[in-house]
């Protein structure tokens, strides 16, 4: 049977990018804040190492996506309204998760549309919101020598990054810039991992079928690990793989996964401090 073609993505067309800024706002998202803070920390470290000041607005909570996609627009609106004041300066906003980035970029405006003033503010915020990997490639032109050993990794691009943010290729681009990293393209690469927020809770049978297939095709590449720039997908895929390991009595993870920021940081010499120490 023929292999499925790769889907194009980039549903919203291309956008223009600002010059390298002095500072950025880092919008960590609730998932990163509470469940994978290391990924957020590594992303911040990478940005700072590139000479960009990172501002972390302390009043950030959540982009409102869970309520919005679950069909609770009022609840989403309340949360979004509480977030519109977080970015007073004219700096870009960097989001380390594709789906949260997509929410801000396309849906904040819709969620508060009944109030024209709020709508305008949401639109202005959307305009300067960038997904982390997209920002590294298109704004910072991230290029650091690869210091790690030769490895083969698989990349999962979230549906939001692919279709909402139109950043299908940036993850690949970043990995391609690492000399010792080979990217293995998995079967049905463009297909959803089956997370979908409350979908995974409401329809566990189908969600499980989807994530099991995703895990199987990622493993089939023979890659030593998976990287992704979306924490929702990452948790879905790695926790499914972990469960399979548990059920099979395996003690070493068969499909470790990392956020792209963590992977990039490790490959390019860790944080600024460790790099300096290495140099000594």
């Amino acid at each position, binding site marked *: *049977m*023929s292999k*499925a*073609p790769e*889907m*194009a993505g980039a*549903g919203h067309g291309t956008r223009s990018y600002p010059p390298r800024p002095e500072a950025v706002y880092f919008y*960590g998202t*609730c998932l*990163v*804040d*509470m469940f*994978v*803070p*290391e990924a957020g*920390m590594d992303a911040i470290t990478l940005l700072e190492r590139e000479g960009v000041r990172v501002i*972390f607005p302390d009043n950030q*909570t*959540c982009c*409102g996506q869970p*309520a*919005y*996609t*679950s*069909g*609770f*627009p*009022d*609840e989403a609106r*309340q*949360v979004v309204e*509480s977030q519109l004041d977080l970015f007073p300066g004219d700096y870009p906003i960097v989001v380390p998760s594709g789906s949260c980035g997509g929410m801000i970029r396309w849906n904040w405006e819709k969620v508060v549309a009944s109030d024209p003033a709020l709508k305008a503010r949401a639109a202005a915020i959307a305009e300067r919101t960038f997904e982390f990997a997209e920002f590294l490639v298109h704004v910072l032109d991230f290029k650091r020598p690869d210091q790690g050993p030769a490895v083969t990794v698989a990349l999962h691009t979230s*549906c*939001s990054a*692919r*279709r*909402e943010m139109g950043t299908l290729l940036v993850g690949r681009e970043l990995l391609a810039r690492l000399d010792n990293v080979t990217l293995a393209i998995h079967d049905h690469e463009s*297909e*959803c991992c*089956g997370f*979908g*927020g*409350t*979908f*995974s809770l*409401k329809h*566990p*049978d*189908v*969600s*499980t*079928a*989807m*994530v099991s*297939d995703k895990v199987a095709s990622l493993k089939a590449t023979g890659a030593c690990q998976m990287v992704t720039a979306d924490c929702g997908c990452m*948790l879905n895929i790695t*926790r*499914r793989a*972990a*469960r399979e390991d548990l059920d099979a009595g395996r003690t070493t993870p068969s499909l470790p996964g990392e956020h792209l920021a963590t992977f990039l940081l490790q490959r390019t010499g860790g944080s600024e401090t460790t790099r300096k120490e290495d140099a000594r």
Partner: protein
Amino acid sequence: MSAQANTTGKDAGQPIAFVSAQALRARMHDAVNDPHLRTSFRGAMDFLMAKRAAQFPDADELDSLRSLSESIRQYSLSKLPDLLEQLEANLTRNGVQVHWAETPEEANAIMLGIAQRHQAKLIVKGKSMVSEEIEFNHAMETAGVGALESDMGEYIVQLAGEKPSHIIMPAIHQTKQQIAKLFAEHIPGVDYTDNVDALIQIGRRVLREKFEVADIGLSGVNFAVAETGTLCLVENEGNGRMCTTVPKVHIAITGIEKVVEKLEHVAPLFSILTRSATGQAVSTYFNMISGPRRGEDKDGPEEVHLVLLDNGRSQAYADEQLRKTLQCIRCGACMNHCPVYTRIGGHAYGTTYPGPIGKIVSPHMMGLEQTHLLPTASSLCGACGEVCPVKIPIPELLIRLRGEANSEPHAKPAMRGQGAGHSTLVSFVWRMWARVHARPGSYRAFSWLATRFRAFTPTRQGGWTAARTPLQPAPRRLRDMVKDRR
């Protein structure tokens, strides 16, 4: 009985209205655990996706054609009542009799009336999803009129006592071995053969006898052209031409949304339809019918009827956002690219139209009481919206319908079944969620507690832990780590 038959055949032949969409979860469970179904749908969808992709090598051309097709459909809808009247006037001038039906019952009554007036014993049918939507076959058979499907896929499905599992390829769930067995069991004088050419020739022989003797031919309509009074049909097999040409009476049935104003608007829609649907540059036949046999004509039906069906479409039309649902040209690309459809097949949905498009049209046809779970059965991955030839924002509409289902039940609902998915508990949980997340102080307190007391996180987390290891908050939040560093 195989697992396949369990998931698909339980309600075999029963009108879809009797299949509860509430049982969606159970059917999904059966479907994903049926390895045969999983393999066959995965293979078929991969095949169709690859064929579609091959039809659009030029991304700019695809983009331009999609935009054009979207604008034609939106334009047509913006003038829908006028265009329907213009269509009616021009069809009438051409000698076609136009009927209007608000409900499936009305549509069936109109068509049964025509059949009885002609003392029809046999109606031979070209492929028509609207006829499936209104349970036409069941209605005719109840009244003692035979209704025989003649599209090969539909014929197979009818022989098996099933419903189509795909709007373009109705028998996509059946293997050739199953079809071979079906033919050998049901068609007199036929021995088992799983040679596809031989099977098609058996179908051809059986159905040709029926085309010759049928009293009435029934068809759907792909596009109805208002300015010329023309009904356009897209097909490969020739059965559509047979049904609309050979019997003395032709009845076409379609939804009220299928009208376009200009004949020139049909060209781009036809092109993007076949390329998106089956990955064909063009279908074998494109049949433009502008009236019954007239003047010196030597063949063609003596009577042509068009039944225009509402069945919930005017409800979708009433809302600017939901109206986009009616842009659909029924290509099926959304289901071909849907990771959920690929895993459960068409029957699990329990609706005439499966897949992503089915989730957004069925609530209008059947009401949210029966269908409110359908819009939740999507990961919102966006593949459907990406391939839709007329750019229907399917994920956005799914979210909207989730909201309509969740809302407080209304005394005078704007949508049938609005609030049917309402749960006091779930609504309360989301209200609390919003309270926490809309107040940064509350969120900080909540997240601090959740991380510090992570050991108390429940290890059974509903659907999540059905197949995954549990989630546990990190020991420290990102905001704590950021503070520490500074």
